[in-house]
C-alpha cells in the first residue's frame, strides 16, 4: 500500500480522540450511592448485555469513521504485486517530467507507475531513476525506500526538453547494471515532440542490446489546450501612423473551438509599476494561431516588462508569458573590421543618423560585450575564429542584428557552419577594371527596407569589385547587381543583412552617391529595430558581461542573492543557469524574461500503433491495476457513520 500524501498520515493520530473522550468520560463518571442494585440487576439481563455491547460498538464505529475519513486524506492506494520480473533485475526508470505531463492527472499516474515499478522488484534487484528535465538522476541503488520517498515528492517541471538527452544519460547509467535482467521503463504521455527524436534509437537498442525497453503510456487520447506562443512588438519601422504595439500570439492545440480570457499587463521598468493592463476574450478555432493586438504604444525609450496570461486550463504552464523590450535613444553600433580604412565611409554615414558608432579590430572581438550593441557590422573580417562566430550566433539568437560586408578576401565557412545561414557560400571574387563596372539593377521593393526606394534611381552607383555568389535563393535577395548576382541579401528573414561588396572608394563610388546614406540608415534602423529582445527559455543560461568584478544582485521569481562574475578571456562574465521556472529574472541592471518552451504545449501524441511499428513495447499499466483506496476509504467512513447512527436510533 502507498500514499500520495503520506505526510497527512500524521492526522491519523486524531482517530484516537473518540477513545480518549470515552476514557475521560469513564474517569469523570459520577459515583452515586444507590439503595440497591436489586432492580437494576433484575432488569432484562439480555438488554443490559446488549447495552454494553452497543456502547463498545458505538466506540468502534466512531473511531473507524474518523480513522477512514482521515485515512482518505492521505490518498491511499493498493498495489497488487504481480512481478514483471521473475528474478532479480537492474531497472532504469525514465520519468518524463516535462510540463506537458502536468495535463490533468498524467504526472500523478506517472509517479504511481514509477513507484509500482520499484515496489514490484524482487529482493536483490537494483533500480536507477532519471527525469527528462534533468532535475533528478539516481544511479543504481537498492535503497528503494529513499527512492520511493524522493519520487513521492517529485513535481512536474517547466522543462520542454525531448527525451533524447535523458535517454542517452540513461544508457550511460545502464552500463553499470549488474543483474542479468536489465530493463528500461520510459514513463511518458507519448507526446510527439518528446518521443519522436528517440524512436529510431530505442528501436535499435531494443534489437541490438540486452536491454528490455518498455514505454508506459500515461497520457490521454483527447486533450484541450490553449497556450501563449509568443509575445512580440510590431512593426519594426514605426511611423506616426504605425506605432509599435505589443502582440500576443495564442495557439489552440486542440480540435475544438476554445474560448479564453487574455490578460495583459505592461510595466515600465524604471518605475516598476504597471502602466497598462487589459483583458480581452478570445475565441480560437481548432488549431488556430491568433496574434492578438494589445491597444497600447511602445515608443518612449526605456525598458518594458510584459506579462500575458490566459484563463487557466488543464495545462497551466503555457498560459503565462513574460517578455522584456528595451528601446534605446541612440542605437549602439559596433563595426568590426581588419583595418580602419575599410569601415570609415560606413561609420561616417551612420554618424549622421541616430547611431553611436564603436569600432574594433576583428582580432579583439572576444573582448567586446556584444549585447550592449543593437547592431554589429562585420566589415570584411578575415580573422574571425570559430569561437567568434559562436558568440555572434548567440548574439543573433538573442535578438541582435548583423550587417556583414563580404568581399573577395572573405572566408565563408564560419558563416554557413555556425550561423546556419542556409545559403551556399560557394562563389568567386570578381574584379572589374575601370571603365567596366556593375550597377544595382533589380530591387525587391516589397522588402520593408527597400520599399522607400521605389521611385529613386539606385543604378547610378558603380561597383568595380564584388563577390559573385553561385547558389542562392531569390526570395532572400533585396537587390541584384547588373551581373545578376546578389548585391544585398537577407537569409531566412533573420536580422542579418549581407552586402556582397566593400564600401571602399577603390571598389565603388556608391559611398559618394546620395542614395548611400539613406540605404545604410535604413538597413541599420531595420537591424537595430526599436526593440531589443532578451528572451530566454527554461534551463537556458543567461550571460551578462558586467563592467567590473563587483558582485551583482540576482532576483529570480522566488529568491534574491548576490553573485560574483568570473573572468573569461580577460572579460567579466556572469553566467546564471538556474532558470527552472518561468518569470522575470533581474541581474544587476538587466532584466530577462524566461518562459516555458511554447511547443511543449502541443500535446499531439505518437500513436501506440506507430510505436509498435518501431518494435517498441508499449503498455498503459504496469503489472496489475493500482487500486485507489481513497474512494473506498471515504465509503467505509460513510458506512461506519451510518452504522453509528443506526445504532444510536435502535
Amino acid at each position: 500500500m502507498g500514499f500520495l500524501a503520506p505526510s497527512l498520515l500524521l492526522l491519523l493520530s486524531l482517530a484516537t480522540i473518540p477513545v480518549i473522550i470515552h476514557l475521560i468520560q469513564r474517569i469523570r463518571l459520577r459515583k452515586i450511592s444507590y439503595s440497591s442494585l436489586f432492580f437494576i440487576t433484575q432488569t432484562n439481563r439480555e438488554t443490559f448485555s446488549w447495552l454494553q455491547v452497543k456502547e463498545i460498538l458505538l466506540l468502534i464505529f466512531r473511531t473507524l469513521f474518523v480513522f477512514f475519513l482521515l485515512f482518505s486524506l492521505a490518498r491511499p492506494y493498493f498495489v497488487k504485486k504481480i512481478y514483471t520480473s521473475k528474478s532479480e533485475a537492474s531497472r532504469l526508470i525514465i520519468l518524463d517530467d516535462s510540463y506537458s505531463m502536468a495535463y490533468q492527472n498524467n504526472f500523478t499516474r506517472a509517479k504511481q507507475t514509477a513507484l509500482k515499478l520499484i515496489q514490484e522488484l524482487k529482493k536483490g534487484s537494483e533500480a536507477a531513476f532519471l527525469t527528462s528535465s534533468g532535475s533528478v538522476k539516481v544511479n543504481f541503488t537498492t535503497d528503494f525506500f529513499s527512492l520511493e520517498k524522493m519520487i513521492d515528492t517529485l513535481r512536474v517541471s517547466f522543462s520542454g526538453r525531448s527525451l533524447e538527452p535523458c535517454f542517452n544519460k540513461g544508457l550511460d547509467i545502464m552500463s553499470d547494471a549488474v543483474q542479468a535482467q536489465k530493463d528500461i521503463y520510459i514513463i511518458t504521455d507519448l507526446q510527439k515532440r518528446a518521443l519522436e527524436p528517440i524512436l529510431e534509437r530505442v528501436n535499435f537498442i531494443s534489437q541490438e542490446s540486452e536491454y528490455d525497453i518498455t514505454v508506459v503510456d500515461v497520457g490521454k487520447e483527447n486533450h484541450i489546450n490553449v497556450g501563449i506562443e509568443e509575445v512580440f512588438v510590431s512593426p519594426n519601422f514605426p511611423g506616426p501612423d504605425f506605432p509599435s504595439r505589443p502582440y500576443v500570439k495564442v495557439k489552440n492545440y486542440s480540435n475544438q473551438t476554445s474560448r479564453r480570457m487574455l490578460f495583459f499587463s505592461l510595466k515600465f521598468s524604471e518605475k516598476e509599476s504597471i502602466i497598462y493592463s487589459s483583458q480581452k476574450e478570445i475565441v480560437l478555432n481548432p488549431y488556430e494561431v491568433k496574434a492578438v493586438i494589445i491597444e497600447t504604444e511602445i515608443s518612449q525609450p526605456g525598458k518594458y516588462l510584459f506579462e500575458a496570461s490566459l484563463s487557466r486550463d488543464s495545462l497551466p504552464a503555457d498560459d503565462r508569458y513574460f517578455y522584456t523590450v528595451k528601446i534605446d535613444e541612440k542605437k549602439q553600433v559596433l563595426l568590426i573590421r581588419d583595418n580602419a580604412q575599410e569601415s570609415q565611409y560606413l561609420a561616417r554615414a551612420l554618424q549622421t543618423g541616430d547611431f553611436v558608432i564603436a569600432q574594433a579590430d576583428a582580432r579583439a572581438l572576444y573582448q567586446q560585450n556584444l549585447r550592449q550593441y543593437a547592431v554589429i557590422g562585420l566589415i570584411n573580417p578575415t580573422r574571425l575564429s570559430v569561437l567568434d562566430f559562436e558568440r555572434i550566433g548567440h548574439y543573433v539568437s538573442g535578438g541582435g542584428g548583423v550587417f556583414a560586408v563580404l568581399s573577395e578576401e572573405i572566408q565563408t565557412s564560419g558563416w554557413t557552419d555556425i550561423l546556419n545561414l542556409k545559403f551556399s557560400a560557394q562563389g568567386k571574387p570578381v574584379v572589374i577594371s575601370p571603365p567596366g563596372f556593375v550597377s544595382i539593377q533589380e530591387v525587391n521593393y516589397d522588402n520593408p527596407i527597400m520599399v522607400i526606394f521605389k521611385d529613386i534611381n539606385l543604378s547610378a552607383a558603380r561597383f568595380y569589385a564584388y563577390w559573385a555568389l553561385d547558389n542562392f535563393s531569390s526570395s532572400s535577395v533585396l537587390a541584384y547587381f547588373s551581373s545578376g548576382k546578389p548585391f544585398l541579401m537577407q537569409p531566412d528573414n533573420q536580422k542579418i543583412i549581407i552586402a556582397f561588396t566593400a564600401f571602399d572608394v577603390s571598389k565603388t563610388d556608391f559611398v559618394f552617391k546620395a542614395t548611400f546614406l539613406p540605404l545604410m540608415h535604413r538597413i541599420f534602423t531595420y537591424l537595430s529595430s526599436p526593440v531589443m529582445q532578451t528572451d530566454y527559455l527554461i534551463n537556458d543560461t543567461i550571460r551578462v558581461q558586467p563592467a567590473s568584478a563587483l558582485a551583482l544582485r540576482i532576483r529570480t521569481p522566488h529568491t534574491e542573492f548576490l553573485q560574483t562574475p568570473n573572468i573569461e578571456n580577460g572579460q567579466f562574465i556572469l553566467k546564471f543557469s538556474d532558470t527552472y521556472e518561468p518569470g522575470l529574472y533581474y541581474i544587476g541592471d538587466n532584466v530577462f524574461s524566461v518562459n516555458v518552451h511554447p511547443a511543449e504545449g502541443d500535446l499531439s501524441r505518437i500513436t501506440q500503433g506507430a510505436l509498435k511499428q518501431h518494435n517498441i513495447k508499449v503498455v498503459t499499466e504496469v503489472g496489475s491495476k493500482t487500486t485507489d483506496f481513497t474512494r473506498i476509504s471515504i465509503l467505509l467512513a460513510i458506512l461506519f457513520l451510518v452504522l453509528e447512527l443506526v445504532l444510536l436510533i435502535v
Partner: protein
Amino acid sequence: MESYQQFLKPEVLAKLKQIDLKARLVVEGFLAGLHRSPYKGFSQEFAEYRSYLPGDEIKRIDWKLYAKTDRFYIKEYEEETNLKAYLLIDASGSMRYASGKISKLDYASYLAAGLSYLLIKQRDSVGLVTFTTTLDRYIPPRSNPAHLKVLLHAIDALKAGGDTNLANTFHKLAEKIKRRGLVIILSDLFDNKENVLSALKHFRHRKHEVLVFHILDKNELDFTFSQPLILKDLETSKEITLDPRVIRKQYQKTINEYFADFKIRCREHMIDYNPITSDTPLDRALFEYLQKRSKYA
C-alpha cells in the same frame, strides 16, 4: 387544624428533633383531618366526657348531662382490646437511600412513631422489631403509655446499615410471635420476591394480620438520573456503570411489573400491601392502618 396537618409532610417533620413530638404531631394532624373520630370504645368501663363532635353517633350523647348543662357531651370508655401490633422496621443499608432530604429509614421512623402513638392511644399493645440480616432488636408489645417512650426511644436510635435477609428474619419472627396479632412491616423489600412472599405467608399461617408498607424513594421508581454514572450498592458496595437514559424504560417496566405481581400475590394471601414513596404525606399510611384496624376489630 391546618397547622397540625403540615406535620404530615415528612420534610416538615424532619426539621423537628424530638421523636415523641413528631409522633404526636403526626397523629394530631392526621386526626384533625378526619371527619369522624377514629376512636371507638370496645368496653363499658367509663373513662371521661368529651364534647360532641360532628360525626359522633347521636345515640352516644349523654342526655342526662344535656338536661343538666344544656350541652352535648359524649361518654368515653376505656378500650379493652386484645390487639397486639408488631412494628417491623427494616434498618438495612438500602433504607439509608435518599434522593431528597428524607431517607427511606427516616420515613419509616416517622411512620412507626406515628403508628405507635396512635396504637398506644387506642390502648393497643405495640411491639417493635428492627432488623437487618438478623433481628437487631425486639421490644415485646405492651399497651401502657409509658411503653410509648420506650418505643419512640428505640425508633429514634435506629441507624441503617448492613445487608438484608428479609425472608429469614420474617420466618424467625413468625415463629417467635406466639399470639396472633397485627404485623406492620416497614421495608423496601429488596430481596427475592418469592422468599419474601413465602415469609409473609408464614405470618398468615400463624393467623397474623399483615400490613406491608413498601417504602421506596421516588427516584427508585422513576430512575431520573440524566448522565452516565457509577451506582454503588449501599448494602453490598458493588458498583455498576450504566447510562440511565438507556435502561430507564426497561427499569421502570421491571419495577412496575414487580409491584403489580407483588400486589396480586399479597391479595391472594389476604396481605395488605401498600407501596408508598418517602415523599408521601404520612396520613395516607395512617389511614391504611386505620382501615386495617377496623377490619381487625
